């Protein structure tokens, strides 16, 4: 008989959802890929509790939830530090933690980084749809489909056998900064932009707009003298696409973005740098650097 750990979400925090590797193959129906935005943090969290690397985790944003546990099990917290407390006492990130019945886990705000991940050792008894546990973006909420967490939502996990407590080596843990250089390759419409606009795009330090989320990162500043070259025909979007709005504002499309769009695509963030973007929070800064493929 497996044992169960029940997790009750007393307060959801800013935006908390269950995420895994993502949902592939249904994009032709207009369904986004979704999945954890910072995959490395997801994998490390799972590794610390003996799960397969792509098992579901909780992804929290800027200000985390308040969770109550029934039963016992093991968890691990990775990514941005939300100064989590277990029954009022600070706990460390990047190590296995034992949970017992009645425990109260509270996440707070991040000082650096944007997203925090929590794994629970075992099989999550949550909604799986089209081969993924990832929540559908709020636009697509439908009864019976995976959705983001709401107050009083609870779920259970058929727990793994308790394992030895391990700690992820300190020297390998990511450090989150407030300013990054993000590598991009040219996008499908790169050649369509004026050279001055391209220069401005790569010279400028952009500030992350407060209206950024799992669908996209909006950047505050307009490109100088940008004139849209006319109506684009809507076309596909991949995660990391940087499109330029008619007002000249770049938007980096993330995992919950719609599958098609009509703005010209100037660049694409390289896959390895997507999780760096995912840890930028409003007010942080970035600069684009053009690299070649391979």
């Amino acid at each position, binding site marked *: 008989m497996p044992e169960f750990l029940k997790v009750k979400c007393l307060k959801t925090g800013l935006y908390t959802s269950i995420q895994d590797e993502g949902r*592939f*193959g*249904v*994009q*032709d*129906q*207009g*369904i986004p*890929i979704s999945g954890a935005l910072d995959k490395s943090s997801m994998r490390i969290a799972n590794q610390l509790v003996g799960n397969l690397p792509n098992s579901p985790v909780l992804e929290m944003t800027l200000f985390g939830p308040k969770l109550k546990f029934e039963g016992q099990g093991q968890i691990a917290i990775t990514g941005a530090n939300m100064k989590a407390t277990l029954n009022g006492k600070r706990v460390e990130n990047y190590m296995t933690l034992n949970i017992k019945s009645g425990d109260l886990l509270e996440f707070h705000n991040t000082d650096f980084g944007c997203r925090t991940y929590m794994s629970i050792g075992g099989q999550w008894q949550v909604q799986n*749809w089209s081969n993924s546990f990832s929540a*559908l973006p709020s*636009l*697509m*909420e*439908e009864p*019976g*489909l995976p959705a983001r967490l709401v107050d009083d939502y609870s779920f259970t996990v058929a727990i793994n056998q308790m394992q030895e407590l391990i700690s992820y080596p300190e020297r390998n843990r990511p450090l989150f900064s407030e300013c990054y250089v993000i590598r991009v*390759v040219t*996008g*499908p419409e790169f050649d369509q932009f004026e050279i001055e606009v391209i220069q401005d795009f790569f010279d400028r330090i952009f500030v992350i707009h407060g209206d950024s989320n799992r669908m996209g990162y909006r950047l505050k500043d307009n490109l100088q003298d940008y004139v849209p070259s006319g109506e684009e*025909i*809507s*076309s*596909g*979007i*991949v*995660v*990391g*696409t940087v499109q330029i709005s008619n007002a000249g504002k770049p938007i980096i499309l993330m995992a919950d973005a*719609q*599958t*098609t*769009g009509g703005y010209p695509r100037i660049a*694409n*963030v*390289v*896959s390895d740098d997507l999780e760096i973007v995912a840890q930028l929070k409003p007010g942080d800064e970035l600069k684009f650097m053009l690299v070649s*493929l391979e």
Partner: protein
Amino acid sequence: MRIQPFGDSALIVTFEKVISEATNQKVIAVYNALKSEKRILYLIPAYNSLTIGLKVEQWSLSSASVSIQKTIDQLSTPELTVVGRTYTIPVCYEAPFDLDSNDVCEQTNLSKKELIEIHSSQTFRVYMLGFVAGFAYMGSLPNHLACKRKATPRLRVPKGSVGLAGLQTGIYPTEAPGGWQIIGQTPLRMFDGNRPETSLLRPGDHVRFRPIGHDEFKIIQLKIETGIFEMEEAHA
């Protein structure tokens, strides 16, 4: 036709820059030819382009590009002329569903009767699905029905709303924000995550709209709820 890298793990095939049945038919033909390829993660067919997400650890951008080019070169007439299904979609064009019909009539100088007549007497092609799950972009409307998007998009367009934008018409499968001009509502569930084929329409399908009144709207709704509704396949 052009094949380009799209980021470091996808390719995009782009055909001539026009919205036309013939161009979209090429997109669908390539999409159909690649559908069962195991080294592809996902495909996004659009008006004149096909986005191809690759499992790059199994198929590099350069070798996939060469191989997909061959696939396209080998496409033959039957694949390029395959006809999708044609469905009839019932739409109630009456209040309270016709949120923007007055605006549309003003913009186009048509009476409401003419508007309904034009919208329901033509067969439209489903060019692509996008925006939200199951949102079908259909076209093309005759030029004299072209209208602008709303200056200020609605925060909540009701589920099932049928809208116009430029030369396109579309149906909101779920409540969503949007700037299309709404002229009616269908009782059909355009997207249902609990159906084997979640989206009612596929790119390449054709659609005809049939005007219905409030009574029939309710009857169809009831039939859907009890699971006895059957889609009407129209004969174009």
